[in-house]
């Protein structure tokens, strides 16, 4: 399969032209070229397109570099890329300019780092064990377990209005 590589600056215009020709996006994802082509641009946004009328497929790679890689979003052209761009942002840290809601989609919101980058190791994240006493004797009048388990509630998700609960 042939891959057409284009710079990020041409992507928005190219996308509109392709859409006018009847091409639909089937898939959009990222690629970290850190070990593949160490000299070229580091990231690629890989787009798979299909044309139902001519029964053809093509692959386009949008090359992007820099510490904060940014690519124009094509959600206006093909609304289907909404989730895909969010996933690419989540996994590679590639920002999509003009995306309506560019937040993490698969990883937790407060996650640090972008897991599919090649410099993000598999075993580098320590497993989070929640410290729990083996046996706890509650003093009279104390609600069992309240405030003593040390669970970082912020990381488990916030509950609005928690303080008001009886």
């Amino acid at each position: 399969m042939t891959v057409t590589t284009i710079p990020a600056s041409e992507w928005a215009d190219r996308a509109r032209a392709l859409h006018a020709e009847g091409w639909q996006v089937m898939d959009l994802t990222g690629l970290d070229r850190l070990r593949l082509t160490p000299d070229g641009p580091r990231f690629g946004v890989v787009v798979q397109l299909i044309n139902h009328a001519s029964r053809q497929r093509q692959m386009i790679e949008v090359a992007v570099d820099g510490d904060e890689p940014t690519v124009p979003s094509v959600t206006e052209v093909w609304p289907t890329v909404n989730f895909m761009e969010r996933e690419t942002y989540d996994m590679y840290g590639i920002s999509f300019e003009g995306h309506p809601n560019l937040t993490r989609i698969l990883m937790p919101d407060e996650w640090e780092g972008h897991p599919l980058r090649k410099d993000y190791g598999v075993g580098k994240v320590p497993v989070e064990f929640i410290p729990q006493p083996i046996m706890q004797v509650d003093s009279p009048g104390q609600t069992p377990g309240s405030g003593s388990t040390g669970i970082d509630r912020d990381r488990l998700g916030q509950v609005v209005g928690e303080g008001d609960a009886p």
Partner: protein
Amino acid sequence: MTTTEELLTDIEANGHGAFVETFDEQAGRMVINMGPVHPSTHGVLRLMLVIDGETVDECLPVIGYLHTGIEKECEDNNWRGAVTAVTRMDYLANFYNEQVYSMAVEELLDIEIPPRARYIRTLLAEMNRLSSHLVWWGTQGLDMGAMSAMFYGFRERELFLDFFEMVTGLRMNHGFIIPGGVWEDLPLGWERAVKNITDQMPRRIDEYENLLTNNPIFLERTRGIGVLSADDARSLGATGPIARATGIDWDLRRDMPYEAYGDVSFEVPIATEGDVYARYRVRVAEMRQSVKIVEQLAKNMPKGDFRHQDPKLVHPSRREMAHSMEAVIHHFKLSTQGYTVPPGATYAAVESPRGELGAFVVSDGGTSPYRCHVRDPSFVNLQSLSRMVEGGLLADLVASIASTDPIMGGVDR
């Protein structure tokens, strides 16, 4: 007290992680969470709903609760080992995951697989479509209040799982389809086992139709509910039965044939209404076509090798290893290092029970995939769920979720 608008702005700025629930008395709108633990969200799908009384104003799917980093895991496996990782994505359609990954790797290797391997793969995939649709049929019925649908659907699914166990040794997560063919030949007596299933299924599908297709309660709850137009389906990238129920006449098996689909004849069921009932009819009709395809494949199953015969690519047989030193060396090399794949990038796609399942695989010439991305149809189709339910009733939301048939293992990967 935050207003609904403030809350939605906050969600857009900070992500969807917080479990916020609020009631805006002035606007009369309420934000509630449905899921991630909810009997009718089919797994760990969470929907943030803005509701006005019983009407759904906005529906934001929040996903990621089943994210297990399978794509990252593939990069640490060898080419053969990554099959066992990808098969766990869409857990109701395991053979499709293995098949699409293997097709992509074979394209990079530039090899042709033997005809028998193509037929075995297609046979297993098509049976997998039936077993997957049976789960959908059961849950669609269950969500509409027809409890017995679940029993019947799962009863027949057992036939398929037993057959898969007979062929691969496992009921799911088979790791059976590998780059180069399949892991083993079909076992003795497979023809009888397939015939047993194909003889029963048309009668069973008639039973299902008797139960639901003309059931007044079911009709009432599915007709005109969750309507998606063809334009929306196209722009939101919906594929598979969801797209075909809106009138988009597209099926990869027929329009871009792969494996053994070029050798079989079948029809592609289409509906035009785009509602839950149309999706129901398309899927039930698809089940009948799948039975036909399985019958044809079993009848015309070619003889010969069941996988590619390059000793550098596939493990030698046990018998060979008892006689040949070469075979032992090959076995050792394949087991410890695996094989290398020429550098390149490719995309392969198959028609899974839920739509276009694609695999984007990149090789740097090493013994493991440099990048393995799977385009899962459930992930993309989930975007059309919001369009289906917005403006409808909360109670109808359940019908739309069931008819989207999302598999969270595939959505979150």
